[in-house]
């Protein structure tokens, strides 16, 4: 419940402040979103498994976003930014799919 409220608060903040993203950070935004989604789906699945842990969630959220950003940044410096972004998206996408499948099994028993 608190989680949903916090999420809505974040959305409202974003709408109210309407921040402009500096151009240098723009390429990392989609990757950051995917990484954050991975942490969130992991958290939701853990909640349904009954093993959710706040600290673990926060750490995985922050580190996911940072690591994804750093990997893409490194890739950009090395000239393989596009490929590394794809790699990050594939790995995170696989994890998101797996977690969503587990959530689905919890919710629908199927």
């Amino acid at each position, binding site marked *: 419940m608190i989680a949903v409220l916090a999420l809505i608060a974040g959305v409202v903040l974003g709408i109210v402040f309407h921040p402009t993203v500096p151009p240098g950070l723009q390429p990392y935004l989609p990757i950051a979103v995917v990484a954050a989604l991975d942490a969130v789906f992991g958290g939701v699945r853990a909640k349904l498994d009954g093993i959710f842990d706040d600290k673990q969630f926060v750490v*995985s959220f922050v580190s996911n976003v940072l690591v994804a950003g750093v990997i893409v940044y490194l890739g950009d410096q090395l000239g393989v930014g596009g490929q590394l972004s794809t790699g990050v998206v594939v790995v995170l996408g696989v994890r*998101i799919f797996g977690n969503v499948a587990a959530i689905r099994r919890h919710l629908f028993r199927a």
Partner: protein
Amino acid sequence: MTSVDGGRWDGNERRSFAPDFLSELFRNPLDPGYADAAARRARGEGPSGATRRIISGITALALVALGFLLVVAYQQTMADEPARSRAHDQLVGQVQRRRTETVALQDRADRLRAEVATLRDRELGGAAVARLRELEAAAGLAPVRGRGAKITLADGPTPINPLTGERKTEAEVKDTDLQLASNALWSGGAEAIAINGQRLTATSTIRQAGEAILVDFRPVTSPYEVVAIGPDSLAADFRAGYAGRFFEELVNRYGMAYDAAEVNDVTLDAATDLNLRLARPSPSASPLPGSSRSGTPDSTPSEGGR
């Protein structure tokens, strides 16, 4: 470290990143940290009440950050979209405006050219006009009508390789094919040639730009019709000559479409956008309208080039 398998976890097994890391990733996407934390809680090593409340607060903050991130990313994407489409729309508008301008200017040029022709006919009269007409027809400056040949070339099938997504373009008509066809027609005695209605002159270019073929910088598309006015044997000569055999080979090998037929009555328009490159009006000659200085060589610049 522990490993989780479908929600079950085992506190003793070490998580390995051996060669099986990828299949492990697929089988078990949940962070093993959750299982570790649950194990610690089960052993009663978890954080105390106050700490836990603080961490819950931080979780809420993280979720606030997440909502913020989502909205910012959404707004960013939405903000980029109109900028992209606006630039595209502007370019489309520019192209269309320029195209209308070109048409208007072309119309004006045609009108002025017709005016010049009528004035010249009135001034010169007789044999000089007839000779000029013939020269103009040969140079591509005047529309011509007559019998001749029509060579039709069209792209063959261009299948897309399902593996690489590449298109096989071997069966496409290339600029060199059109050059070959027109050169064969010229050498067969053609007096005038037009490709898809574009009249060729002495300085015409047939070139490839990417996938498009440009004749005098205007794009022409498949099927290509090379129409020539010339002697009655033009089509037969073309079929029997090198070019005809070459195209038949292309038809057999790549499935390109080719046809050489005789045409009885065909009209070829004058070439557009011809301009003088070599000849210049002489500075002294500014004949008064209606003056009888007909036939002076420098007042009739030869329109020999573009």
